[in-house]
């Protein structure tokens, strides 16, 4: 029994024990990108926010887009893994940890982007000591910090069995401090029925909590926009719309992560086409919802054609034509076609679709933030002509790239610390499935 439980761990041992040359090269590359981002950050701190493309009309740019985007990606774990866990979906086990890692890493990076947008970082603590509950930003601070704690606890609970397995697997060739760390983190879990019962119950409670907190967080984020009177933002649908768009982007990032780790760590036995199709179908359903919400939002704006809504839609179809087509047409229709038609459902096709979906959703957030700020109630006039249109500068793009690089780096480090596939769960799962068959 014990040997049986340990067998998958042996297979995952190499990824924990050593890093290949390609692995190191990858890490160095990521550090390089992060370095450029750090230089951009210093430039912004020293020369002021003037080095960005943001100006008095478009006061929020790519930073806020990235903030919404990463918060959205963090949904992969919160909603997808939470829901899969609660419904005891049989195939969830191999991918659930990736989803949870995506959640927590994206959740740590997202808020950093909002900090880049803040004019006086030295006074950030005022948010706590002078916080006003009327302000949606205060709601956001409370919601996001709760979410980070909730997701960390959830991730930890689901890792506990593996940490115990790593502690018990003595032939693992690791430095002493790491073995010690596993021992401390495993909290003396040995898998007694009592411990199993408690752990399962705690995990179930946290799964439900994480789902509800995540919905609140994303709705609050949407309300930052929709409580204002700006044309295009002042919409009742924004809360649910943002939630759906977030889970949608989360599912796509999960597929991409599955593809990468399957290739890099040779997990073909664990992550199969079945998993890609299953997450692909989740993505398909979300694509349909996302398309429906997008359509509802723009239909009502266009049909009633209030002056400012009309100006906004004109702007979307002129200056932002291609981003609009990619995000709201291709980004909706492609998953419906590729995952919807059975013969297209290959691993490669689903992954490529997921990449398109991620790009489409980033653009979707850009189209929510920037065009509205370019078409306020009072037309932009009596302002420097170069301020009429927003375009991000190298500082903003470098920091965006650095955000993605930090995401990849943290994911890489996490995969060196714990198997990306929950090993102890797999054995139980296989047994259960055997019984079922």
């Amino acid at each position: 029994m014990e040997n049986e439980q340990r067998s998958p761990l042996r297979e995952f041992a190499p990824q924990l024990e050593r890093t290949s040359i390609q692995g190191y090269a990858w890490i160095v590359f990521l550090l390089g990108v992060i370095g450029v981002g750090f230089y951009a950050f210093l430039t912004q701190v020293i020369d002021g926010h003037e080095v960005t493309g943001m100006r008095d009309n478009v006061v929020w740019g790519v930073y806020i887009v990235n903030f919404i985007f990463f918060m959205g990606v963090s949904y992969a774990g919160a909603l997808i893994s939470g829901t899969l866990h609660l419904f005891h979906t049989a195939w969830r086990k191999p991918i659930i940890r990736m989803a949870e890692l995506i959640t927590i890493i994206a959740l740590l990076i997202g808020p950093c982007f909002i900090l880049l947008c803040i004019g006086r970082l030295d006074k950030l603590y005022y948010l706590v000591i002078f916080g006003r509950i009327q302000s949606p930003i205060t709601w956001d601070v409370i919601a996001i910090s709760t979410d980070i704690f909730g997701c960390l606890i959830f991730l930890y609970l689901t890792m506990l069995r593996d940490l115990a397995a790593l502690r018990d697997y003595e032939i693992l060739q690791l430095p002493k401090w790491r073995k010690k760390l596993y021992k401390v983190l495993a909290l003396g879990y040995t898998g007694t029925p009592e411990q199993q019962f408690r752990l399962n119950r705690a995990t179930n409670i946290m799964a439900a909590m994480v789902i509800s907190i995540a919905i609140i967080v994303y709705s609050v984020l949407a309300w930052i926009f929709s409580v204002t009177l700006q044309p295009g933002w002042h919409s009742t649908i924004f809360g649910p719309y943002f939630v759906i768009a977030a889970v949608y982007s989360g599912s796509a990032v999960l597929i991409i992560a599955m593809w990468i780790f399957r290739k890099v760590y040779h997990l073909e036995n664990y992550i199969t086409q079945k998993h890609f199709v299953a997450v692909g179908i989740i993505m398909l359903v979300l694509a349909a919802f996302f398309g429906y919400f997008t359509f509802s939002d723009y239909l009502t704006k266009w049909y009633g054609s209030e002056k400012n809504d009309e100006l906004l839609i004109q702007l979307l179809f002129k200056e932002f034509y291609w981003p609009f087509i990619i995000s709201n047409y291709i980004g909706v229709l492609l998953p419906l076609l590729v995952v919807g038609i059975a013969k297209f459902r290959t691993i490669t096709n689903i992954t490529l679709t997921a990449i398109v979906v991620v790009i489409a959703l980033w653009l979707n957030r850009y189209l929510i933030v920037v065009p509205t700020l370019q078409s306020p109630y009072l037309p932009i006039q009596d302002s420097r002509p170069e301020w009429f249109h927003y375009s991000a500068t190298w500082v903003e793009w470098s920091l965006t790239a650095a955000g993605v690089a930090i995401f990849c780096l943290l994911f890489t480090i996490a995969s060196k610390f714990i198997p990306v596939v929950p090993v102890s769960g797999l054995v139980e799962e296989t047994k259960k499935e055997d019984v079922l068959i």
Partner: protein
Amino acid sequence: MEEEQNVNKNSRRQFLKQGLIAGAGVAAGAGLLTAFVDKSIAETGEKVKVLTTNGEIMEVDKAQLVLPRVTREESHKGIPGRKFVMVIDLGKCKNARKCVEACQRGHHMPKSQEFMKVYLLQDSEKTSPYWFPKPCFHCDNPLCVSVCPVGATFKRSDGIVLIDNERCIGCKFCMTGCPYSTRVFAWKHYKEFDEDKEPYSPEASSPGKEGTVSKCDFCPDLIRVGKIPYCASACPMGVIYFGDVDEDTVTNGVETYQFSELIRDRAGYRYLEVLGTRPCVYYLPPVDRQFPVDRGFNDLAPEIKDRYKETPYVQKNKP
């Protein structure tokens, strides 16, 4: 003489060695306050008697009498018993831009920031275009105040909405909250900020601070010494009237009207009433024009002229 000029250059405000205790009526409702005389301001000839701290009575020009700025705490309170209002007569505006410039000078702002902007509006294709000076509306239901996470922007008892840039964290939420695009952000440290040597007060909105938001403040520092805001006194056409709703008076420095009568007789309105922000700035419709709208393009620097090149009116009349 040369030395005196140097002093002027360095501090713009030349203080008398001893302080003055301002006479009653000058600083309405402020009681006894220590004031200074600023010789750099042009004399108006209107003299007031004041008591120096040495106990002597002294006659100074009213325009030159300056009160020191109120503290940050004091600036939250508002001037007791007042409720300020502005009326802008669109029939008289010809985009002379004196309001913009006086405001920039008065608040030590760079040329790239304006609290007062002049729009060229045209409500629809067939309607007539008109110049539209736009300060902060100091709304009675200000969304900018609601959304501020740290209470850096606040509504006072006298109706004025101010920003405390010592408190502001620069999140810019108020800028997206304001439907009138009224607020400006200091994208860097402008050298004009350094011209102001006095301590910061939200009532003066100066000296500015990098990474914070600022906006039109209705010049409460001038109101305290019985003056009207920079924009209102600088306008050569007398477009901008400033006053008090409770006293029912507004003045542009030359003419004084009963506010309620002016609004009734000239069909005064508030801009974008539909948004429910309840502004404290009223407009008189652009009727009985004193100037054709094209006069507004005369004598504009090319850089300023460029700012209007995307307006429907300019686009339509392009040669």
